[in-house]
């Protein structure tokens, strides 16, 4: 039986190879390569443009290699004239992201634990309420949100941005965590109970340590979501000293409209954390998104 299957498989492979001559494979490669170049062009334009002078950018925009290489754009953003702006905005972004991700992952773990391991009336209805958050455009909420934040006196406060961002990230976080918490065997919980564990102790000492990969995944997703948030900070923050990086880059590009090379340098440094983060956590990001969406 097994030999038969493997012969069949081998025959199928041969068929496939016969059906796809190397011309098709080469064509596929060329298509992929062209798409890859399309992805790289804007990124390289920004990175290399930051090493040019405005004169170079205007005289020959297609030139790839800066001639000569200029470092002042990057150094002025990192250590020079614009360093104050950049580091303040980076710090603001970091504070918002840390608070928002901390709150959303903590609250979502509590909720997902209850949704996963307790049976009670209204559970599915309440869970559906959270799922609804994935279904409608979140921009709908922003005008009343602005009024609300103003009324509770949190406008112009980083906390006033972090809390709504945490709230917007809750649905996806809960939807991903729940099946993971559910998959932890019942026997483990019974054993913990016999050993005298309370619900909280089981959650804290058994469930959370076992769920570390899932917690890492949702933290990474929430970090990317909050780090790139633009609309909420735009309406909820008042002044330049509170801006997060995306707002800062927008403002910088208007303020230094004539100094494109410096704008490019600022932009590149502003997206560097996201790229570094991606290089470090790509696997979890992809697995989280596919788990979240393929199940949804």
């Amino acid at each position, binding site marked *: 039986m097994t030999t038969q299957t493997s012969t069949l*498989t081998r025959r199928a492979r041969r068929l496939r190879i016969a059906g796809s001559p190397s011309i098709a494979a080469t064509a596929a490669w060329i298509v992929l390569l062209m*798409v890859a170049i399309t992805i790289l062009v804007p990124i390289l334009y920004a990175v290399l443009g930051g090493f040019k002078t405005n004169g170079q950018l205007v005289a020959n925009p297609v030139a790839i290699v800066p001639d000569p290489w200029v470092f002042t754009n990057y150094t002025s953003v990192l250590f020079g004239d614009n360093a104050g702006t950049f580091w303040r905005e980076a710090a603001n972004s970091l504070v918002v992201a840390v608070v928002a991700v901390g709150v959303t992952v903590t609250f979502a773990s509590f909720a997902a634990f209850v949704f996963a391991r307790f049976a009670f009336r209204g559970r599915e209805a309440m869970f559906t309420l959270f799922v609804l958050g994935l279904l409608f455009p979140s921009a709908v909420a922003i005008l009343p949100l602005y009024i609300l934040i103003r009324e509770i006196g949190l406008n112009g406060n980083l906390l006033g941005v972090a809390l709504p961002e945490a709230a917007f990230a809750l649905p996806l976080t809960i939807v991903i965590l729940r099946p993971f918490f559910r998959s932890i065997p019942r026997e483990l919980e019974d054993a913990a109970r016999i050993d005298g564990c309370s619900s909280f102790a089981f959650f804290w000492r058994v469930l959370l340590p076992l769920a570390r990969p899932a917690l890492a995944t949702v933290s990474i997703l929430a970090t990317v979501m909050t780090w790139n948030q633009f609309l909420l900070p735009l309406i909820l923050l008042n002044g330049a000293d509170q801006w997060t990086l995306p707002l800062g880059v927008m403002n910088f590009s208007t303020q230094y409209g004539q100094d494109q090379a410096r704008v490019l340098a600022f932009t590149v440094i*502003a997206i560097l954390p996201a790229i570094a983060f991606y290089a470090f956590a790509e696997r979890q990001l992809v697995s989280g998104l596919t788990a979240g969406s393929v199940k949804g």
Partner: protein
Amino acid sequence: MAAALPRSRERSRQISTRLTIGLFLLPALALYLVFVIAPVIQAAHFSLYKWNGLQPLTDFIGIKNYQVALANDAFRTAIANNLLIVVLSLGLQIPFSLGLAVLLNRRFPGRAVFRLLFFLPYVLSEAITGIVFRLMLQPGSLVDSALTSAGLGGWVQDWMGDETLVMFTLFVIISWKYFGFHMVLLLAGLQGIPHEIEEAALIDGAGRRQVFRYVTLPLIGPTLRVSVFLSMIGSLQLFDMVWVMTGGGPLHASNTMAISMFKAGFKATQMGYGSAQAVILFLFGLIVALAYQRFVLRRDTEGALTMSAG
């Protein structure tokens, strides 16, 4: 006496379970109700008033804000633009992503690098991406001079300033940022299909195209539907990229519903009018969500029926 003791212990255990459920749910539920659900309901309330957001909410005008919005050319352009992006995304971006997912669903050298690179734009901020593209598309900048030096000077356009072109320019950039996301989703769907099924169809004499149409496509149906749904919701609430690149201009040519709502609420301080636009945006989202639910539910019942019949 002997029976009363376990009963009271049972009761106290029940109470403690309920307390646990309540305490664990409370933080997430409170945060979510206050910052997500309540604002959506309030938008519906505000939309019935003429209100600048500061004075008490007293000037009730019924559905007048809706009538004004739906009769307003700028807002109608916004609706048309959002729907254009929905149609273009479904017609071009998702098929393109699916095509690339199919290409990447075989083993060959460099596959991991391509996947890593194609997904990269997804993690970049939409606003910052928009700024880089704005600089590249300025008259005389990279795109124009690349076309000129390739001998295609006649193709040079006012990419963001031309009223008929601007939405297509934006669509290309949106696709640049999001095709990798859909590709990764669809690739995960494709990888979930056992090779044996496709191989069996090949052995039975099906052509490659037939295998794709009648075997692969139905099997990644659920993933494809998620991808389509996320793409539609994203297209409906388009804001960041448009705001930094064109601000909705020239004139209203690249207006979207979210841009229009933002301008009404914050630039013109017409909170009631802006809220009416938010509710209209919500209704579009609702139609999409209901259609999605219905489609999925119908498919599921169909599956159940065929299963019980077979």
